[in-house]
């Protein structure tokens, strides 16, 4: 049982503030995923929650107790590091029991906790091995097991799967999801740069950008109703297309005339003051489909990437702008060098003014 609350938390190295104005409420039983580009401060924020980095400003509480100056061991947290950080000179058993020995738990208590964790993670046959005699996935499980034996209130994961190969990563991801399900009362904070991990594991995702929170929401909220252009482009792959234009029709359905021709209809409602407003029309590649009429966009397909299940179409870009990408079902390599008109359902079309979604005004 643990509620984590961050209020105005910031991190500064000298004059440089790498994190600022972090306001976040994490409820018991949630699995919160921090995502963001490299250097956005997601790992730093996790380490501040762990107590490995000093909190420069603001307040951080667990269950209402101020934690800013509490040492890591007394915060009731356990952390799984990206590099696993196993103690190389100790067996798997000793690795898992280290924290309990430090805490002067009784021998029977330690044995019970280690046995239970080893059973959950299928590590029982490896308890007497040294870490160097384990495979990458087994080391990862030992690292997780080391957290479980401590029975913490909060689990912290710092990119735990990034050192595994693709197949093992998918398998371990599912194991973590099952682990979470088996411990509904534990709170987990998980840092990753992998969208798939974020979308599949998270109760809620926190997108960090430029040292602050860009948006907090459930995975589908972020996908369907991104708050700003950054989140819109960060979530989803390939990234959402952004096309500049001007609002020409208002009402329950907004009509935008795009700079490179074509009209876009969006289900985002607008009022009379918005007429003539410069906006970016956001539409995901997978929501674009071929049309006979004018549609939103018309252009020549420069490159096709057939992935089997879908085909990615890259259109010739107009002077310096990012190329428009469309994702069509099936194998459509035949479309290369052809001129296509594309459109999308108005419900799937987002509008951004000055980087912020018109949905969140």
């Amino acid at each position, binding site marked *: 049982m643990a509620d984590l609350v961050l209020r105005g938390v910031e991190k500064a190295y000298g004059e440089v503030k790498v994190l600022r104005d972090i306001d976040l409420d994490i409820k018991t039983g949630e699995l919160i995923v921090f995502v963001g580009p490299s250097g956005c401060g997601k790992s730093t924020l996790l380490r501040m929650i762990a107590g490995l980095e000093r909190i420069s400003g603001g307040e951080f509480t667990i269950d209402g107790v101020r934690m800013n100056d509490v040492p890591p061991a007394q915060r009731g947290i356990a952390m799984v590091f990206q*590099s696993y950080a196993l*103690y190389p000179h100790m067996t798997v058993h000793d690795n898992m029991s280290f924290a309990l020995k430090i805490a002067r738990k009784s021998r029977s208590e330690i044995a019970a906790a280690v046995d239970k964790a080893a059973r959950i993670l299928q590590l029982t046959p490896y308890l007497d091995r040294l870490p*160097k005699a384990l495979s*990458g996935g087994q080391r990862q499980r030992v690292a997780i097991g080391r957290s479980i034996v401590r029975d913490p209130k909060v689990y912290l994961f710092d990119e735990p799967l990034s050192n595994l190969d693709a197949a093992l990563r998918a398998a371990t991801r599912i194991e973590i999801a099952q682990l979470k399900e088996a411990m509904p009362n534990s709170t987990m904070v998980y840092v990753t740069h992998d969208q798939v991990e974020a979308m599949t594991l998270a109760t809620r995702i926190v997108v960090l950008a430029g040292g602050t929170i860009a948006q907090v929401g459930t995975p589908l909220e972020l996908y369907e109703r991104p708050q700003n252009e950054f989140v819109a482009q960060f979530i989803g792959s390939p990234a959402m297309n952004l096309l500049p234009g001007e609002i020409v029709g208002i009402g329950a359905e907004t009509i935008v005339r795009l700079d490179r021709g074509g009209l876009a209809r969006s289900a985002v409602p607008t009022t009379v003051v918005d007429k003539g407003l410069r906006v970016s029309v956001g539409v995901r590649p997978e929501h674009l489909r071929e049309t006979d009429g004018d549609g939103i966009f018309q252009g020549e397909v420069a490159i096709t990437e057939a992935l089997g299940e879908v085909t990615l179409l890259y259109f010739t870009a107009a002077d310096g702008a990012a190329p428009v990408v469309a994702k069509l079902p099936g194998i459509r390599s035949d479309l290369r060098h052809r001129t296509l008109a594309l459109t999308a359902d108005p419900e799937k079309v987002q509008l951004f003014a000055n980087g912020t979604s018109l949905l969140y005004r």
Partner: protein
Amino acid sequence: MDATAGKHVMDKIAGRKSGLVWAVHLSAFALVLLWVVPTLGLLVSSFRTGDQIVGSGWWQAVSTQVQQLAAVRIAGEEVARDGLFVIEGQLFAAGTEVNAWGTSSVQPEAYAPGAVADLDGGVTLTVAADGSFVLSSPATMADLRMPRVFATAATPPEFTLDNYGTVIASPLAGQSIGQAFINTLTVAIPATIIPILVAAFAAYALAWMEFPGRALLVAVVVGLLVVPLQLALIPLLQFHNWIGIGKGYLGIWLAHTGFGLPLAIYLLRNYMIGLPRDIIENARVDGATDFQIFTRIVLPLSFPALASFAIFQFLWTWNDLLVALVFLGTGNDQQVLTGNLVNLMGSRGGDWEILSASAFVSILVPLVVFFSLQRFLVRGLLAGSVK
């Protein structure tokens, strides 16, 4: 085209690599020779007798030696026999085989064994292969100056443990090597352990604990690395006298500790700071205090660094002469091996068998230390901790 070009490049790289490997192997072999040959020579010499060392090189130690023996003047009782006056006797120790002999230093190999040499006044001399001689004269030789015999003889190889017995037990230069050996151990073992203990704590603090002035302390340690110890000898000795330690073992332990600490702290800190940060942070999250992190995690993982510094420090204190001369007394219970060797060079400089045996006793311990600890220098203890 790409494939073949790639293959050529690969061949070139492979070829250059094997050339380099050969160069490495050859130079390693040369270094091994450079070290092994003199050591072997010393070892072999230490088992030979003084005469044999003077007579031939150590590489001839196992073959029978043909050498010119020292001239022997004939002496013995004159016996009258068959109208002649005869002196008979044995020139050399048993086992010596005479190859050739002569009666003048100009022609020391003039006669074969058993040949008869005519000397002045009808005197004849015969020397047999076993070294027995017959000198006969028609007149009495009582007033005659006896001739000298120069002989070239073959002596069988001879090995002995007596040299070691002599140097270890008997006091040749004030004290025995055995006593000096004990004294040196008394200096070297604490002078190795104390600085490692102190330095390991200091290195951990300088590597992993946050406190103001840490960077400055590290800079001071690096600065102390380049201070020559000669600078501190006299002030330190005065200080020892002033606080009442004087000359003695406690003083030299402290001196060696002080002189060894900068390097020890520097080496160990650099090693410890290279340990993965995640491991130490994980221990911190696990609730370990700094002391527990040090003893349970950092110390076991730093064992290769500890071992290599221990080797250095032990060899340096074992071979040290200067610090021992300054901080130890000159009594038999305090003089170290190096000091004893210096004295032996003075008083027994010609006795190679004594010197080589003494020298070998003094290098024995460094050899044992090196060979027993060297595996820690190459073993990677970090394997498996991180991917």
